[in-house]
C-alpha cells in the first residue's frame, strides 16, 4: 500500500530491546517520541475537531432557526441530513477528494457535514420542546416575538442543544481518526502507519488511547457546561 507524502516516523531499528521486539508498552519509546509523533498528532486532532465543531455549530444554528420558523422547510432539510448521514465517513472523504483535493479542506468539509447533521436535528427538537404554556403566558404578557425567542425559547432549548453538542463532539473526534486516509494529520496517522509497517503495539495503544481519552474528556467537559448552563434543572 502506498503511503502519502509527509514525514515518516523515524526508523526505530536502533531502539531498545522493547522497541525492536514490538512490546506492548515501551515507555522509552513513548518518552522519546512523544514530542515528534504523539503530541503533534494530538494537537492536529484537536485542531481538526474543534474547527469542524465550531463551523458545524454555527451553520446548524442558522439552519435550525430556519427549520424552526418555517416548518415547511424542516422536512426537506431533515431528510437531506438523514440522507447525508448514511454516507460512510471514509466514502465521503474519498468522494470529496476529486473536488477539493488531498487537503485539510476535504477533511473539514466532511467533518462539518457530520457535525451539522447531528446538531440540526437536536436544535430543532430543542426549540420545539419548549413548554407551550410558557410561550402562551409570555405572549399574553406582552413580550414581542423577538423577546420571546431570546428570553424564553432559546434558553429553554439550551439543554437539548448542549446534549446534541456532546454527541457531535465525540462523533467528530472519532471520525477525525479516519482523516489519516487523506492527510497526514491527526491521531489516526500513527495508528495507520503502525498497522501498515510492523504492528508496533505501543504506538497503536498510545495513539488509540489518546484518542479515546480525548473523546471522554470532551464529553465530561460538556457535561459540566450543561450543568452550568441549566441551574434550574438542579433545583
Amino acid at each position, binding site marked *: 500500500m502506498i503511503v502519502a507524502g509527509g514525514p515518516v516516523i523515524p526508523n526505530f531499528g536502533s531502539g531498545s530491546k522493547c522497541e525492536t521486539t514490538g512490546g506492548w508498552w515501551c515507555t522509552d519509546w513513548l518518552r522519546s517520541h512523544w514530542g515528534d509523533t504523539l503530541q503533534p498528532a494530538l494537537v492536529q486532532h484537536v485542531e481538526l475537531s474543534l474547527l469542524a465543531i465550531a463551523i458545524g455549530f454555527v451553520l446548524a444554528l442558522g439552519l435550525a432557526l430556519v427549520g424552526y420558523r418555517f416548518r415547511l422547510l424542516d422536512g426537506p432539510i431533515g431528510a437531506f441530513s438523514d440522507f447525508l448521514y448514511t454516507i460512510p465517513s471514509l466514502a465521503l472523504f474519498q468522494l470529496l477528494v476529486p473536488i477539493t483535493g488531498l487537503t485539510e479542506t476535504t477533511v473539514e468539509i466532511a467533518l462539518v457535514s457530520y457535525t451539522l447533521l447531528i446538531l440540526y436535528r437536536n436544535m430543532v427538537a430543542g426549540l420545539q420542546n419548549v413548554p407551550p*404554556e*410558557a410561550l*402562551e*403566558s*409570555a405572549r*399574553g*404578557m406582552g413580550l414581542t416575538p423577538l423577546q420571546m425567542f431570546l428570553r424564553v425559547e432559546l434558553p*429553554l432549548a439550551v439543554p437539548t442543544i448542549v446534549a446534541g453538542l456532546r454527541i457531535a463532539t465525540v462523533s467528530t473526534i472519532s471520525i477525525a481518526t479516519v482523516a489519516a486516509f487523506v492527510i497526514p494529520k491527526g491521531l489516526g496517522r500513527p495508528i495507520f502507519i503502525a498497522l501498515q509497517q510492523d504492528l508496533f503495539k505501543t504506538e497503536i495503544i498510545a495513539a488509540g488511547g489518546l484518542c479515546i481519552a480525548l473523546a471522554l474528556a470532551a464529553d465530561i467537559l460538556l457535561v459540566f457546561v450543561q450543568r452550568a448552563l441549566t441551574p434550574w434543572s438542579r433545583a
Partner: protein
Amino acid sequence: MAEPQAAELVFDHATKRYGDAGDLAVDHLSLTVPAGEICVLVGPSGGGKTTALKLINRLIPLTDGDIRIDGVSINDQDVTQLRRGIGYVIQNVGLFPHQTVEANIGTVPRLYGRDKRWIRARAAELLELVGLDQSYAKRYPGSLSGGQRQRVGLARAIAANPPLLLMDEPFSAIDPIVRARLQDEFLRLQHEVRKTVVFVTHDVDEAIKIGDRIAILREGGKLAQYATPQEILEHPTDDFVAEFVGKDRALKALALRTLDTMPLRRETGDGPRAEKTTTLRDALSLLMTERAQTLVVTDGGQPIGSVTREDILQ
C-alpha cells in the same frame, strides 16, 4: 407602568367567528364590567368563555364588534403595549422554568425598563401579598408545588400594577383543598388591590364564591344571564341557567348570606351557638345536626340573639 386605578371593561357586541360560514364561538357579547369588580365568565365547555377572555388581550382577534378598556378600543392600541397593561394568568401558569421566581415576577416590569433593585423589592412585596415566604424569591419553578406556582403566577400578573386582570381557569388544576384556600386568599388580595378582574371557570360554585357579577355563556357563545350571584340563584332567566347552577341553587343562595344580615330574635337561651359571620347554609346544617329548632347567634362568643329554622328557610 399602568395607572393603579382599576379600569372599566366593556364588551360591545363582541363576536368571534371561525371560517366564513363557521360556528360562532362568541355571539354578539355585550356587557359592562364596572371598575374594581370581579366578573366571572362561566358556562359549559364550548360555551366560548375562554375565547371571550382571549379576545380582550387580542390573543384571539375579534371578528366583529368591539371591546373597550376605559373607553379605548383594544384595536386602537399597539397589541404589545395593550398586553403589558393587562395581567394574564392561565391554568398551567406558564412560569418560565429557567428563571427564578423573582425573575419571573419581574418579567413585565423589566419590559418597562425597571432595574434589578426595583424588581427585587417589588417581588418581595408581592410574595408577601400572595402569602409566600421571602425565601421563595431565588427558587426555581420546578421545585414548587402547583398551588405555590399559581401564587407566583398571580404575583407575576400584577407585578406591573395593571388595571385589568384576566384569569383563565387559574385554580382548575389545583386539588380541592388548596383550591379553596387560594380562592379565599385571592378574594382577600382583591379586597386590598381592587382591580378589575375577568375570571373564567367551569365550576359554578367557584363562580358564585368569587364573582361580584357572573356572566353565564351558553353553547355558541351567547350570553344567557349577567347578574350578581344572588340574582342568578334566586331568579334564573331560563331553564338553561337554572339547570346550570344546579338543582340545589336555593341552598347555594343560602351560602351567600351570613347570620349577621338577618333580623335576630331577642331571646337567647340554650341551644347550639354560631358566630354571626356563619353563613346561613352552615347555620341550617348545624341546626339539623343538633336536631334543634333554635340557634343562638353570638358575637365574639357573646350571645346577641337567635334565629329559628323557619327564619332561615323563608
